[in-house]
């Protein structure tokens, strides 16, 4: 069954019939499995990878390091859940190493992100410090090359 997940992870737009052929299942079995995965929360949704730099729309991404004070009973979960509620925040992750929470967020401008950090994140009681790193260029994201798209350089040796 995990083969279905692998196929979907690479290309969520493949028709059920193709997924079924590749996974040695019937289309009905694949549909049922996908439903099950969705119900169980294994499949979280389907998105499209877009290189916004190639469009007219300006989008700025930033990686934000947060140091926070954990709560006695709930550790980092409480503050992480609070931050995750902000729609501006794409990802919230508990990290090992020099800081506690790693955030990824998207905004319309550097200023918008900077203001969000200054006015919304920093004032939270449990946030001790923040460090904002703006993404200047994306080379690869979620396994897909964004810059230097790989060309098929194989020789035309058809044999």
């Amino acid at each position, binding site marked *: 069954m995990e083969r279905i997940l692998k196929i979907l992870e690479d290309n969520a737009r493949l028709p059920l019939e193709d997924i079924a052929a590749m996974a040695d299942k019937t289309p009905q079995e694949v549909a049922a499995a996908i439903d099950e995965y969705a119900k169980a929360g294994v499949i979280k949704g389907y998105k499209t990878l877009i290189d916004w730099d190639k469009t007219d729309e300006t989008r700025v991404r930033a990686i934000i390091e947060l140091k926070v004070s954990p709560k006695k009973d709930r550790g980092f979960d409480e503050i992480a859940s609070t931050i995750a509620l902000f729609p501006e925040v794409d990802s919230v992750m508990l990290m090992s190493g020099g800081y506690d929470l790693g955030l990824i967020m998207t905004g319309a401008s550097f200023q918008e992100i900077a203001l969000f950090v200054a006015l919304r994140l920093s004032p939270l009681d449990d946030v001790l410090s923040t460090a904002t790193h703006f993404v200047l260029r994306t080379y690869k994201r979620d396994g897909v090359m964004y810059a230097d798209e790989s060309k098929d350089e194989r020789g*035309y040796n058809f044999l």
Partner: protein
Amino acid sequence: MDYSKILAGKAKQIKPSGIRKFFDLAGTMEGCISLGVGEPDFKTPWMVRDAGIKSLERGKTWYTSNAGLAEMRREAANYLARRFDLHYDPETEMLVTVGGSEAIDLALRAVLEPGDEVIIPEPCYVSYAPLTQLVGGVAVPLPLKAENGFRLTAQELREKITPRTKIVVLPFPCNPTGAVMRERHLAEIANVLQDTDILVMTDEIYAELTYGPRRHVSIASMPGMKERTVYINGFSKAYAMTGWRLGYVCAPQPLMQVMTKIHQYAIMCAPTTSQYAGIVALRDGDEAIEGMRDEYDMRRKFLTSNLNRMGLTCFEPEGAFYVFPSIQKTGLSSEEFCEKLLMAKKVAVVPGTAFGASGEGFVRISYSYSVAHLSEALGRIEEFLKELSHE
């Protein structure tokens, strides 16, 4: 200067590929989607590349011994025993070559006298016949049949054997058909050849790309066959190492001595950097092979399912990374089909006839491409078939 007087007759007699021009055109065509390439789209596993880089950093840039690095041959012997139950002495029965291609050439040159016959089951990889002709041998094509799943049968083999037969080529898993000879099929062939002085040249470059629950079996592992078999394998397909040009050949010692002699004078040794990389591939590469095979297997099913749905029927290829669908229902010859498809939809596939006359009515489609690439190409092929049916 009259070059026609200078060039060797045997070399001139080799037919140039009739479709080379056609594929040169495809290579320059803007927006052309190729399904023609016969090499993996994966990159060589990182640890293998790294081993090559490290060998360069450490200045290991000299020749190796003619037979290849001793460690390389030892690892190849371990690998063959582990994966295919083949047992060769790395000191006396193995030679590291410049890809499987050199091994084919060496075996033919070591054995053939002018007029000796080589039975070549077709459709197959294109090198066997020209290399046979270059040493004055006679290439005897043996047309394989679609109804047999393009496998060689004992009866077909018996019918082609003459007193001049010296070698039978076994090109399985097969490029271009994807056919595989399972143990029972090989047993029948072994039965025909035992008690003869006919040598088997088994080209098992696609051995690791065999799909389904049953593993690849080599004819050299069958009782009584090792002594009459030249076993050829390499790194190009299993480890995605085409550009490294690395292979090896295993054979009984008397044959190996002669092949090593020719190799010594013609080549000196296989590339040293590649050999250091190859050692790591053989020792630690099993997991990488599995990953690539799993991906190929999904693509194989994706392609066969879609081609059959479109009416280009193809039997299930059990090996290599090609499917070989029939295009007979279109009423076109293989070459016509490929040319029209290229011109109309900018999709390049290879006519079955490029691999022997018995490939007529078929085309070879490679799945050494991403599913997205295959999907785009299949869409264009489907459009082409619809337009063809309205003509």
